[in-house]
């Protein structure tokens, strides 16, 4: 019997574009014993543009649960937040958002 090898999947330009614009990366801030609550609220407001209520909610999430997903963004924007938050002394990781 004759067999046929399936062609390898080819990533098209449209798929790449879609991936670049897909908000598929979570930005996670982790708890640490040194950064103060007030300071963390300040950083969330300055860097992420949160209002105080939202910033406080996420800060308490970090404080009580050890971490908080503060944004789900495109890869580029997530990397930007990662660097900005870390430049302010917070501990940050990124993870794929698997819905």
């Amino acid at each position, binding site marked *: 019997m004759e067999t046929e090898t399936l062609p390898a999947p080819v990533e098209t330009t449209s798929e790449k574009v879609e991936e670049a614009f897909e908000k598929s990366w979570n930005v996670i801030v982790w708890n640490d014993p*040194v950064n103060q609550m*007030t*300071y963390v609220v300040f950083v969330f407001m300055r860097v992420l543009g949160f209002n*105080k209520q939202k910033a*406080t909610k996420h800060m308490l999430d970090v404080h009580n649960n050890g971490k908080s997903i503060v944004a789900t963004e495109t890869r580029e924007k997530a990397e930007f937040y990662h*660097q900005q938050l*870390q430049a*302010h002394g917070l*501990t940050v990781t990124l993870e794929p958002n698997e819905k």
Partner: protein
Amino acid sequence: MEADFMRRVFASIIRQYQLKPEEVHPRVAQVWYSTRGCQSAQLSEEQTREWVENLHSLKTANLSALKRWRRTLAPQSKHVAELAFSDEDAYALVTVLNDHRLMCAARHEIGEEEMNIRTLPQMEELSPRRRTALFDVIALGTIIEAVLALLPGGYGDWPMHATG
């Protein structure tokens, strides 16, 4: 006394910012230049190196302001040392002071246990170096809260709302 303290802090942070990331004390580098996020983002070795360099540039961008503030606090007879800040300066100041807190804590292994010290006898159990580091962390925390409370945006008053 406050001016002496701030001068010492500014001098220390200037020294640290002038070091390349690989020259910073390893425990401090683990906090300031942690690449945990780069690993989680699956960045390549070269991308990670570039990322650390960019982070270092963000820190050193505050160097000229730091030097200006230190000059302002230079000892002058018959004058009370005074620092005046624009709002933008104050945002940078808060971040720089927090960096110093993180540095002291990392370098002298100040963790949760030490951060919860509330009594003098507990404090006296620490070595003199760790005691000084903890003092810096606490004192600068108080200064940061005071500056944030003065800035527009109401950054400093959340605890009253949270507990009210």
